[in-house]
């Protein structure tokens, strides 16, 4: 066993956190955006209104970039379990490796197999088939999320296993119990809603930006801009409150199965009924006290147990070497909740404006919506920090310590790769973000340029990938 403060272990953890933190943005973006594209194409086929096709064309360019970045950053993850956590893979691979294989076979291939048709195939297959391809990609992103969250949830609330006494390996005993472990349904719903919400706020901010720009130019914003803004704000108004309910349910589940995580999230040291909620404070792991605490009486019990006198756990209930680092997750949890509440308020505000018919004309609201662009993704990252750091000091909760999971890799190798990952990720994904922002800075083109919807596929393909069109026939190469 390596010491918990061993520099190689800390680097392995930091590197994994960094690479997965960058990665998670892209699949979450893909999950939300693929579903949005499927809805847009479905609406276009159903209503025949060109505005939906305009929006499809606009967002599929973004999708192609986001998806590509997701593929390459995800490839890293599928090998990093072995490079950084070989002892974990050796022991838990019979369970988590199998779940990952199912993810690859049911989801990754489905997405990748139909992505080509979705991006470049509109003029090569019929409209119905193309729509089917879009749906396959979207369903693929959802299946993928399901498997990886099942695997992650199993690490949080392991079930359906036995431990081989000779090797210490986890042996699968009941696959249904493994897959549908206690925290899985809650995590799945919470993450799915988070992906939809994150994308809604990016789409909304893009719409807001173009409305502000049109206003400054003294023009009326175009129809696609208004439609995308309106759709995004509906999403925010409906999904943000649902997300808060889902988060609450997830919290109750965590209290039941991982009470130490709840105690650390809340910065509570002593278990008590009638517990207050800490609005602010700085938990100190050494003195076992939360300094500068600002308390709301009784609210802690109310939130966590839904009753005023419910008992909530304190970190002193658990041995020192089984407590997650409270100072990290105390704050990540609060930032996530604050962003969630903000997103809900924006959604409700949009409903109010809609009633007064000022949704498209209120510049203050548009500025707020623009500033909220990263809100969903920030909340999502804070949520992951909370649940993953909150699982510490374990990789498989209560059974396998992080310090017993790390690979025997030299510190020098780990330091080299950490540097290389940071440099490459900043360069590549920084450029990618720059490209995305520039792309979203251009307003969606309207169908007026080519009023015949039958020609739209060629325009789409040309914009995504200029060279696939044969000008003589108008058909793809």
């Amino acid at each position, binding site marked *: 066993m390596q010491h918990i403060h061993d520099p190689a272990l800390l680097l392995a953890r930091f590197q994994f956190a960094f690479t997965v933190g960058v990665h998670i943005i892209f699949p979450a973006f893909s999950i939300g955006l693929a579903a949005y594209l499927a809805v847009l194409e479905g609406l276009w086929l159903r209503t025949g209104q060109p505005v939906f096709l305009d929006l499809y064309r606009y967002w599929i360019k973004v999708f192609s970039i986001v998806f590509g970045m997701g593929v390459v950053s995800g*490839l890293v993850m599928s090998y990093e379990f072995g490079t950084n956590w070989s002892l974990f893979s050796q022991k838990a691979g019979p369970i988590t490796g199998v779940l990952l294989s199912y993810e690859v076979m049911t989801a990754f291939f489905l997405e990748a197999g139909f992505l080509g048709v979705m991006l470049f195939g509109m003029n090569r297959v019929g409209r119905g088939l193309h729509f089917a391809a879009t749906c396959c990609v979207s369903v693929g992103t959802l299946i993928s999320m399901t498997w990886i969250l099942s695997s992650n949830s199993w690490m949080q609330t392991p079930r359906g296993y036995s431990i081989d006494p000779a090797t210490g390996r986890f042996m699968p*005993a009941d696959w249904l119990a493994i897959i549908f472990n206690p925290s899985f349904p809650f995590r799945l719903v919470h993450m799915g809603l988070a992906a939809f919400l994150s994308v809604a706020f990016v789409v909304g901010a893009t719409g807001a930006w173009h409305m502000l720009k049109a206003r400054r130019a003294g023009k009326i914003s175009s129809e696609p801009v208004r439609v995308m803004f309106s759709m995004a704000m509906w999403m925010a108004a409906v999904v943000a409150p649902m997300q808060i309910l889902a988060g609450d349910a997830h919290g109750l589940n965590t209290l039941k199965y991982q009470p130490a995580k709840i105690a650390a999230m809340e910065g509570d040291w002593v278990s008590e009924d009638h517990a207050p909620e800490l609005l602010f404070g700085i938990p100190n792991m050494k003195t076992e006290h939360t300094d500068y605490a600002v308390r709301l009486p009784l609210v802690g019990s109310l939130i966590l147990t839904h009753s005023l006198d419910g008992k909530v756990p304190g970190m002193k209930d658990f041995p020192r070497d089984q407590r997650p680092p409270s100072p990290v997750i105390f704050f990540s949890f609060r930032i996530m909740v604050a962003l969630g509440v903000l997103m809900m308020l924006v959604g409700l505000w949009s409903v109010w404006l809609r009633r007064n018919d000022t949704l498209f004309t209120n510049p203050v609201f548009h500025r707020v919506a623009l500033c909220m662009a990263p809100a969903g993704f920030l909340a999502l990252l804070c949520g992951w920090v909370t649940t993953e750091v909150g699982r510490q000091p374990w990789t498989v909760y209560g059974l396998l310590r992080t310090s017993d999971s790390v690979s025997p890799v030299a510190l020098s190798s780990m330091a080299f790769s950490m540097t290389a990952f940071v440099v490459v990720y900043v360069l590549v994904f920084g450029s990618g973000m720059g490209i995305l922002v520039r792309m979203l800075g251009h307003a969606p083109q309207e169908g007026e340029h080519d009023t015949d919807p039958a020609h739209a596929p060629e325009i789409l393909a040309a914009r995504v*990938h200029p060279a696939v069109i*044969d000008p003589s026939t108008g058909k793809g190469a």
Partner: protein
Amino acid sequence: MMDFAYWLPIVWAVILVAAISVYVVLDGFDLGIGMLFALERHPGRRDVMVNTIAPVWDGNETWMVLGGAVLYGVFPGAYATLLPAFYLPIVLMLLALIFRGVAFEFRIMTRGTNREGVWNTGFMAGSAIAAFCQGAILGGVVQGIRVVDGAFAGGPLDWLTPFSILCGLSVMCGYALLGATWLIWRTTGVLEASCRRWAARLAVGLFIGIVAVSLWTPLLHAPYLRRWTDWPNIAFVAPVPVLVVVLAALFVMGLRRGHSKGPFLCALGWFFLCLSGLGITVWPYAVPPGLTLWDVSSPPSSQFFQLIGTAILLPIILTYTIYSYHVFRGKVTETDGYH
């Protein structure tokens, strides 16, 4: 009586080698096309090269994710020893694949700016480094790693030997050949003609690589040599070198007579034979020279559960992968330029 604990790892070893072969073939020509950017400077023809693979590269790379996932789920003992042993080349390969993967889109999106060149170089260099690392890792596995108590116990640069460097260079050459022959099949005109010229030279390079690796490998470990020289093994393995030479003859003929698919199929055949030869040599070790397939495999319940899914899903995956290639079939020409 069926002994699952004995047979399952064998079945999985076959599936894994098949998945790796599919990966090598599919991503091989992708990476090869990236490397051929070094020889083709014309922007229009470069676009044609990229367009032949743009709709399918995601799927091609997924086979590599499958390889990693199967190793992780079915042979966790191999996953947990090989990955730390090849830590540096694997990290390098992943970073290279990131560069080249995003370059597909980024080089279009930055068109006309000074950053476009960065992504063209990234596409080329990323492909070359990824190919070299894959070859070096393969060579490193064949030459073996130091394992104590089921965990890797060597140094970070143990893998870097003249043998693994030779394997890395051979794979670079081989992938470039796959790329060139793929382009012979899928393009026309100047590009096709250049590819025929490049293919001839690359084939010579690969042939030398194959011969050198084949002569060197049996000298690495005594069991490897016995595999190729003892009776009755020799009766099974003798066809491999013979077929390599037959394919070489077919390749030269296809290239001279202007066949479009022939050279690509011959190059595929070479890869298939090389991987089979390596499989025969290393068998039954998963992590040479110490750990066999059975030493590193997960419990039969894991392997069996995964096998059920694979038996159902793999045929479906192959079907829609073939469909996707079918949608984008046919020659991509230079007149498909911009407008």
